[in-house]
């Protein structure tokens, strides 16, 4: 058996699985999307139909905000956790990364416990100001849920990247007179660029497509996954839900590609 044949035989299972469980359903989805009363124009509905477009914008803004907030929080926490040794550090890391295993429903439930009608924040604000603050069912509740979801993943990536940073770079910058802020700005953050792009992409894609949290919280929030779900199960509008699904995928992918190419120069330079 030649070397080349051997590689092909090793790849065969992957090819079969990809074809059976990825390409075929995707092709089917594409076909269903175009097979409704609107025909191929169903694919444009996500942009042309005002209700769909508003939902799309909502979803993208929410996902972008989640990504930015997650990166900021997780970078600060990740830098600190990787660089400092203190009692309880291991416990803290375990706690921060604990939600990794939670399904969206549980995260939604936690948000309700925190900021729902019977929630902790409601009880406290009611006691202090006399007015009960409830935001679990608003877009802010969803934002909080997504943060909860994304932070663990991003923290782990950032910590791994920080560990690989050459501490000599920071010492060199300091010896040249750079203040701690300047060191972060000129040395640490550029070096973490690739990690930001990678983990930010995952946070963004997760927030675009997260369903469980939205489903648990959603009384009055419109995000794309929810829209697809309602079109599919309640309105039985298979063509539109298929077209929306494809649209969700394409738009998330396009935004990530854009972010990657914009940061491309910086990432390449930092590598």
């Amino acid at each position, binding site marked *: 058996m030649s070397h080349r044949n051997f590689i092909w035989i090793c790849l065969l299972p992957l090819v079969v699985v990809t074809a059976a469980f990825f390409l075929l359903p995707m092709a089917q989805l594409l076909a269903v999307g175009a097979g409704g009363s609107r025909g191929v124009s169903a694919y444009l509905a996500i942009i042309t139909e005002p209700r769909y477009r508003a939902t799309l914008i909502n979803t993208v803004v929410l996902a972008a905000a989640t990504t930015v907030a997650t990166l900021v929080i997780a970078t600060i926490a990740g830098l600190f956790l990787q660089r400092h040794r203190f009692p309880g550090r291991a416990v803290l890391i375990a706690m921060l990364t604990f939600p990794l295993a939670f399904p969206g429903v549980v995260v939604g439930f936690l948000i309700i416990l925190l900021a729902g009608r019977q929630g902790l924040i409601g009880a406290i604000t009611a006691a202090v100001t006399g007015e009960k603050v409830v935001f679990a069912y608003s877009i802010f509740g969803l934002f909080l849920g997504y943060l909860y979801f994304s932070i663990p993943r991003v923290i782990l990536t950032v910590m791994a990247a920080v560990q690989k940073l*050459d501490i*000599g*770079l920071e*010492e*060199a*910058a*300091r*010896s*040249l*007179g*750079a*203040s701690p802020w*300047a060191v972060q700005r*000129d*040395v640490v953050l*550029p*070096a973490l*660029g690739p990690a930001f792009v990678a983990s930010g992409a995952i946070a963004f894609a997760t927030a675009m497509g997260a369903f469980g949290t939205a489903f648990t919280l959603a009384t009055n929030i419109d995000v794309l996954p929810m829209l697809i779900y309602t079109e599919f199960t309640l309105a039985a509008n298979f063509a539109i839900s298929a077209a929306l699904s494809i649209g969700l995928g394409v738009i998330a992918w396009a935004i990530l590609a854009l972010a990657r190419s914009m940061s491309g120069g*910086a990432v390449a*330079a*930092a*590598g």
Partner: protein
Amino acid sequence: MSGIAGHGAAVHIENCGKTFPDGTQALAPASLDIVSGETLVLLGPSGCGKTTMLRIIAGLETPDAGGRVLFDKTDMTAVPIEQRHVGMVFQSYALFPNMTVAENIGYGLKIRGVDKAARAARVAEMVALTNIGGLENRRIDQLSGGQRQRVALARAVAVRPRVLLLDEPLTALDASLRDRLRSELNSLLRSLGITAIYVTHDQAEAMELGDRIVVMRKGAIAQIGTPREIYFAPQNRFVAEFVGAANIVEGPVASGRLTLPGGWLALNDAADNAAAVAMIRPETIGIVAEADAFLRGTVESVAFIGDRQRLVVTGAANKPLTVDAPNTINVRAGERVGLSVTPQAVRVLPKED
């Protein structure tokens, strides 16, 4: 500010020891004075505390309580590195990968608020000084090891540091490049007149670069002296053996003579001692006819190295002696020879256990 390097500070280190939080004593309390403009080399085997000492001077480590670091009589012990105005060259070079060569060299000036025109002029000056013209707009990953080393040096010198600190800057390079850069670095340091502290474990590097050498061993200073003093007058067996090749011989000393199995050696004013230890450098031993010498032995092996030949002579001392002989004399293994050594070439060392 004077000259291309600016002002070199005199450095005074007082009782600086370092015990790390895990209990490792990397450095026993030591004191050291570095004259303005001098190149001082810290030399010693791996793990002897050279880097720790350098980092204390830089301000990257704080010395144990009681230790002080002074630049020009000003106490710097509590001053953080970013305000010490030192230049550092790391073994890994630690060049910023997100900046070009020119941006790397100009970084310290930019941070200190030097305006763009003055910065460009200074960068150009450094580029010329370190011979890296044409590389200004390259990224760091497009440079060879030797070029990186030059950029690291240019970056450290650009800010006119009060003290230049170099931690094994040539170790990562291959041997021939290392030799060339070593002599380049040497003339650069001389022309800059900068105060420099240079860490290495390579004794040839230490000899060539150092005005003075501090030989370190296990976190303590074994000897401080000029290269000649360190080489010809080592104060203990460790220094004798670490710097250059050394024959260590043992025997009783009486009335100015060291008695060895193969005869005796005349000494310069040595006290009587029943069990003395002495050092003889291989190149100070002359090969003469057996009849003309007071010390004799048998040639065990001859290795022709080109510029000289290295003999191993047995029977003369308690251990085989290494002799660096001229490449012109004709000796063969198995031959009996006489060994001539001047009294100045025999260095009696203090007894150690």
